[in-house]
């Protein structure tokens, strides 16, 4: 019965049926044939799985990200970071990395970061005679930092499925996010120096001060959101609602870019993304319930313990599996693996916070590695480049990101130190 359910799942998955249907139908077959559960229980699963207060942070952070992208905060932040980093070799590329990292803290979504920062900087890079593939590669890889730097939507979903504190996960993402941003700047500068890409024109102190003042409302957003969460003022869900209203007010009254029309379109776009993510989550939970009832996670835990597998070996293998899976499924589909391997993780005493960071980095890489590479295709489409050219430009940054993921395996403190200190 188990084999039949799993076979159906894989056939549906590979044939191209929406992943949520593959999970749901596979899980339902296992549950019905193995445990005798009535079919109509799907009605209960598909409501109860997402009827959850914590999960409301997902649609609200998506909405905040959409509103931010529409309010023009991306351009304002780019100007500020250009003043700080524009003078180094390949200054626009380094500015792109820094601005993307910061925008990640506002938006929590990689595509929104790409849309707001990339749209501003790609034409500037082309105008400054930067290689187009290189420019697209820098922007694509840097925009993925939005996954890692809080408030990250993927962290909420991971936390929900693995019963890990979202606030701790958010804290855990900060140092790895900054580290990855710094490491991404290394190939950006080296390539720029070798190819002679020029720095940006110098901005005077006065000019920079004006830019900073203008950007202050945008800079305050992560302070309010993260400060509110860690100051114990509000939960991540409430923080998401505050982020929405704050962006709305700043966008309407300060930057004057938000109109009723783009508030409405942001809301509908957020509803669309919410629908895609949450229905997938329902079906992932159904499949996990099925696998739990037949004892697969426990069997896996036993197998790992008896097989004498060590935590680093397990983590390296898991990273490789995630990298391969990331080539064919989206980050939300990738998270499905965790409830199944949780007993093995507990048996090996692996920190779920460190694991969350590794998972998010693997998801970042997954969105850039074909054939299923949403961010890569989005970048190519956004900048009207052939995918092959974007891939060529992306390769050095992809290699660096993969290297950093393995560094995080053997350097858990970078992920666990900050939450350990804050939540002690």
């Amino acid at each position, binding site marked *: 019965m188990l084999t039949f359910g799993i076979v159906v799942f894989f056939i549906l998955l590979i044939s191209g049926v929406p992943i949520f249907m593959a999970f749901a139908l596979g899980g339902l077959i296992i549950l019905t044939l193995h445990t005798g559960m009535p079919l109509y229980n799907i009605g209960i699963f598909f409501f109860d799985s997402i009827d959850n207060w914590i999960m409301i942070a997902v649609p609200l952070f998506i909405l905040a990200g959409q509103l931010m992208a529409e309010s023009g905060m991306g351009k304002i932040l780019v100007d500020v970071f250009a003043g700080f980093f524009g003078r180094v070799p390949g200054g626009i590329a380094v500015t792109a990395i820094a601005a993307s990292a910061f925008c990640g803290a506002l938006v929590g979504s990689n595509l929104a970061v790409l849309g707001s920062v990339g749209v501003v900087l790609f034409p500037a890079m082309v105008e400054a005679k930067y290689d187009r593939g290189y420019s697209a590669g820098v922007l694509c890889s840097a925009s993925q930092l939005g996954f890692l730097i809080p408030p990250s939507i993927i962290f909420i979903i991971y936390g929900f499925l693995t019963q890990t504190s979202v606030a701790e996960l958010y804290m855990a993402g900060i140092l790895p996010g900054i580290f990855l941003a710094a490491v991404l700047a290394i190939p950006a500068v080296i390539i720029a120096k070798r190819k002679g890409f020029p720095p940006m024109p110098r901005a005077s102190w006065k000019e920079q001060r004006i830019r900073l003042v203008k950007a202050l409302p945008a800079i305050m957003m992560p302070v309010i959101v993260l400060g509110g969460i860690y100051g114990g003022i509000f939960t991540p869900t409430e923080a998401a*609602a505050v982020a929405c209203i704050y962006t709305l007010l700043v966008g309407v009254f300060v930057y004057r870019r938000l109109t009723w029309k783009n508030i409405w379109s942001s809301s509908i776009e957020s509803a669309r993304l919410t629908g895609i993510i949450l229905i997938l989550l329902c079906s992932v939970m159904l499949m996990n319930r099925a696998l739990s009832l037949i004892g697969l996670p426990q069997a896996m835990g036993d197998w790992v313990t008896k097989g004498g597998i060590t935590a680093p070996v397990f983590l390296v293998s898991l990273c490789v599996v995630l990298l391969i899976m990331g080539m064919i499924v989206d980050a939300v589909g990738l998270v499905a693996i965790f409830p199944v391997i949780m007993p093995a993780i507990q048996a090996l005493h692996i920190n779920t916070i460190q694991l969350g960071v590794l998972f998010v980095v693997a998801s970042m890489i997954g969105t850039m590695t074909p054939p299923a590479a949403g961010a890569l295709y989005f970048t190519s489409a956004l900048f009207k480049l052939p995918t092959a050219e974007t891939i060529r430009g992306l390769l050095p940054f992809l290699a660096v990101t993969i290297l950093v993921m393995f560094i995080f395996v053997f350097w858990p403190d970078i992920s666990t130190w900050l939450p350990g200190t804050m939540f002690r």
Partner: protein
Amino acid sequence: MRKLAAVSTILGTVCRSAAGAVMLAMMVLVFAETISRYVFGISHEFVPAISSWLMVWVTYLMLGVILKTREHINVDILPTRIPPRYRTPLLISFDIISLIFAGLLCFGGIKYDLIVKQLDIHVVTVQFFPVWIVRISVPLGAFFLAFFSIEHLVNEVRYLVKGTGEES
């Protein structure tokens, strides 16, 4: 065919607009509760339940619409690489699977909703609102999914048989 397309457009617009409005309502509700709790020290027990119900409604209102535009996440290696003449039969098989899934979800949703209605179940924190009305979102979403699957199916069968219309 034209009637089906017109109904589909109207239904799509209604679902999208309703989901957008529910989304904004959810944002306002959660924000108002945050302010109320933090500024006035008053907490309303019903807010977490109602806002998560709104989120469920957003999900099911969009379920069919996302299928209509084929934007649900999938592994698209096979559909994009097979020769065009096999593509339409493959899409037809997807639509049949979608219909089966929608049928199961609709059946499960209605069956469970009827039980909830018969037992007159209420959530402790939201006594004033019957849960069956909230839970109707699941069969309703399944109905939308079925409708848009049928629309795709009709389009693709026409394309396959007559070579007219559009492969959706």
